């Protein structure tokens, strides 16, 4: 009951006031979980297509941007409602955000699928 109507003061403040840190963490969890699982699926798809080397990395960028676009659509194309971004911030920063961390996952599933289809 102490939570009713009170936002926690943690998290970055913007011009108006405080962000609801609980909801922010919840949204970040959703975004990260979606990105991780879909990067794995993208790795499998790239392996099936038989891409090697730079073609595969280009495909990684394209699939990652697609996943981010889908997440943006889920947020109604207004990032400021659900993340800590400022109002009216562009989508370009969000499209390739966090891709270095998930590149290992992508490469893992990519080599797995490539080996299963093309080597065995």
């Amino acid at each position, binding site marked *: *009951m*102490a939570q*009713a*109507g*009170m*936002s926690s003061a943690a998290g970055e403040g*913007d011009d*108006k*006031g*405080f*962000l*609801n840190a609980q*909801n*922010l963490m*919840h*949204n970040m969890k*959703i975004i990260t*979980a*979606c990105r991780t*699982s*879909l990067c794995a*699926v*993208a790795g*499998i*798809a790239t*392996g*099936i*297509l*038989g891409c*090697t080397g730079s073609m595969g990395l280009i495909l990684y960028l394209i*699939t990652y941007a*697609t*996943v981010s676009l*889908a*997440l943006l*659509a*889920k*947020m109604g194309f207004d990032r*400021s*409602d*659900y*993340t*800590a971004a400022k109002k009216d911030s562009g989508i370009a920063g969000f499209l390739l955000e966090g891709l270095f961390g998930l590149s290992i996952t992508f490469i893992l599933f990519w080599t797995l*699928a490539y080996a*299963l*289809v*093309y080597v*065995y």
Partner: protein
Amino acid sequence: MVKLGTIVAGLGLLVLLHAGYSAAHYRQFIVAAEGEAAPAEDAPPLDAVVETIVGFLLCVAGVVSAAGQMLPVRGPAGGGRSADAHEGLPGFAVFSHRAVQLRRRTQALIAAKK
């Protein structure tokens, strides 16, 4: 009850697996036809490529929609606090009131009615 997004994502995975199987099968055809293993540069046939893309897009749509609702991060200015003091302030929580007596009387009335 299973979410629709989960079903769509599962379908996308199945389509992807089927595309992979057909790509592997295609390479076996090449081995049977030419008598030696297919070079690794051979792309799978066009329908397998299209099927892979379709499977991936189905997975994206399914996972993103099944991921759960996003909650708004910026509340109304001022924190959205209500002016109703009785909800939050512990000083207004009364513990000694007439509910005990009331319950006893109601029970007695119900018992008397039977």
